[in-house]
């Protein structure tokens, strides 16, 4: 049996019909069509599905869609504003922090949540903040550097 709920994603309200056991990840991808949030493991181990809910980075594969009613959800698609990349997206592109790109949306959303709370993180804080997001391609070095660079350019925003 499906039921109707309202979800607020990237500033827009969506009326979606869902089954109560569906996760936010599945609803974002299959019902709303936001495919930028990736399904890597579907059990909270890889971080590829990270989105921001009410300012907190969450794993959308571990949250039921019904738990998200009344919450503000931000996905990778909502990050660039007025056709302008978020400083983190820009830094990831410019500083070589992207390779295959599958972990990238989750990595950027986790970084966004980190910088929102800690605008000038140390390398150690970045490491800890992103330790739940797996990447096999980059060895993380350029990702950590990109987050640091973004944290300095954001002052001028």
């Amino acid at each position, binding site marked *: 049996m499906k039921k109707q709920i309202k979800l607020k994603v990237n500033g827009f309200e969506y009326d979606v019909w869902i089954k109560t056991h569906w996760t936010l990840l599945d609803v974002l991808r299959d019902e709303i069509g936001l495919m930028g949030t990736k399904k890597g493991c579907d059990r909270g181990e*890889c971080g590829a599905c990270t989105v921001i809910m009410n300012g907190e980075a969450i794993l959308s594969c571990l949250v039921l869609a019904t738990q998200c009613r009344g919450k503000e959800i931000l*996905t990778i698609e909502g990050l660039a504003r007025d056709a302008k990349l978020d400083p983190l*997206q820009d830094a990831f592109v*410019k500083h070589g922090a992207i390779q*295959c790109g*599958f972990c990238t949306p989750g990595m950027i959303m986790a970084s966004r949540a980190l910088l929102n709370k800690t605008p000038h993180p140390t390398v150690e804080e970045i490491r800890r903040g992103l330790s739940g*997001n797996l990447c*096999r391609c980059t060895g*993380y070095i350029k990702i950590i550097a990109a987050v640091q660079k973004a944290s300095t350019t954001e002052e001028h925003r």
Partner: protein
Amino acid sequence: MKEGYVNIGKRLPRIDGIVKATGEAKFAGDLSLAGMLHAKILRSPYPHARLLHIHTDKAKRLSGVRAVVTGKETVGFKAGGISATGDEPYLALDKVRFIGDAVAAVAAIDEETAEEALDLIEVEYEELPAVLDPVAAMKQEAPLIHDHAPLNISFKTDLSYGDVDKAFRECDYVREDRFETAPIRHGFIEPHAALASWDRSGRLSFWGSKQSPYFTYRNMAKALNIPLSRIRVVQPYIGGGFGGKNEMFNVDFCAALLSRKTGRPVKIVVSQEEVLFAYRQRHPTIIDLKTGLKKDGTLQAVEAHIIADGGAYLSIGALSLYLMCAFFCIPYRLPNMKAKGYRVYTNTQPSCAMRGHGVPQSRFAAEVQLDIAAKEMGLDSIDIRLKNALKPGETTPNGFKITSCGLEESIMESKRIIARWIEEKPKDGDKKKKSGIGIGCYGYVSGPRMAGHNTAGAVIKVHEDGGISLFTGSTDVGQGSDTVLSQIAAEVLGARLEDIRYGMVDSDITPLDPGTFGSRVTFITGNAVRIAAEDVRNQLAEVAANTLEANPKDIVFKDRKVYVAGSLDRSMPFSKLVKIAQYSGTGKTIIGRGYWAPEGLEVPNFETGRGNMSAAYSFGTQVAEVEADTDTGMIKVIRMAMIHDCGQPINEMLMEGQLEGSAIGGVGHTLTEEIIRKEGQTMNASLLEYRIPTTVDACRMEIYHTETRDDLGPFGAKESGEGIQVAVVPAIVNAIYDAIGVPFKRIPVTPDVVLNALKGKGQKEV
């Protein structure tokens, strides 16, 4: 570096960076078509069993199910990597051979229904004794996994050059050790996914996460028994491969088969858990190694006996075994060598290529043994490597012709780095923590020469606004080749990187290509792109020469303009030139074509090892500094340095990314990663329990490259980023040896292994 390049050697952001950063890049699992069904695969719960009967009626009757397929509905094609005789059906025929072997597949209106239907399929199995240990598998009394393979041997190599026995007799120092490596994962985060759509004209369109799409193109035709021309394989963005997405898999086949049966598009996305227990791994090995040296440290002879656990099927294992054995001949001068290799079937996940392909296992053994030897002989571990390092112009006994080679330079540079690191070491550190520095060297291929198709092709089309379209048959699985190839085209045509539009593989349009493996794309496809761009340049130079009243040879392409050499005022924009070419008179269609493969290479014989694997070998030295906590047994890699001979880097930023990722992957291989199995069942089929490195494992990294330029490589470039993983493992193990005095002969070196070794130290060797 040669001066004057606009694109080559520059730190340019990758061309697909923005669409990947915004989440717009579509991977196979993100695709959908109208009316699409979703499918799931039923897998064997037994490591070895005869398939008696599959009852699918109940599953078919479930509401929402559209089709169920089993091996009975196939033509029985068996895949076999690069071997002529296949052994791996995409859906089990008579037997299942490991836990995870595909038995049936269901297409339904959604994934949930497909999954529910799997539970309704009843399979009657007759359990057979499982063969789980490769040594036991080779015993006379062991049950056979494949009837055609006595002693369960799937492939054998026997390399022998020089007179090994005589050489050992004349050596001042000989030692023998047994080394072991554990099975590990490729570790890509994007699970295998495929979307297939069969139309009523009998044509199949296929989108899949394939790093070498043309393998799937050919095998799909054979497995479905249809002409190749009825198949179109299209490449979406690919979420990492590392060797684990080369071959066509059951996920690809089942999507196509179910689409044919239902007349609807069918998508299958496997779960990460399935990736981890039901697909590929790196070959675990047991390597008995004997090395002999003169007292001055000159290497005289190596004798190796390798047992590689190939799992249930051959896959690409013949090549893997050849590489493990033949690469003892590189990077050191070795006049006498013998290597016998056995790739053995067991009832576990099949083993295949993975970053460094076979070489990480044997190089780990050789480099660690060399350090033990150096220490016992009282020689310096750097000097011993320098003494034996191959030089440009040498030929190895098995036939590798060394052309450009910066190995000596890289070893000498490592000496300076180590001296500096020792100086920087804190003098009064924590007594419980012991630090050490180790090195390892490697040599690797820039594209392997194998029997069959080797050529890369490129097509370039120009647009009247000055834009340039580039098509090749090569895939970018994250390594950045789309960008590197575009840089090459831009450089030749005097354009900028942003002028190039790169078209990903579409077998209807793009040139045939072997695939993305063996570090071949920059070197081989890069040359094809260079030639295609030169073809365009020649065509346009004719037009420009006419208009500017000059000789075509004197037309220079630079800064989005063409001009006559020596007279800058006789020039016009590139876009205007294209327009003139297309519009004036009868008009011209400017399309450039290029194809390239190295000429005259002797194709290696996988059984005897003879042949020249590549037209250019890359070399390098890896340095690692570790800290060993003697209380907890934890090893922490503090920093690493790599001095790398990759010829002329095309894009330094992307190249660094490749090296860093490869090195951190090597840290996992050395310290944490191991697939744990119990009676054939994978016990850590999750990314939580199978631990790949995270941000906290990313250590400091220093990257240098030697001043080498390869004559054949495009703009002088060679392999980069794959070979280094070969040297990372021994560099770390040798650093641990330096720190605590224990040379570990099995990887991974986990904390419990370290603690046990420290307890037993002094009484026995580890």
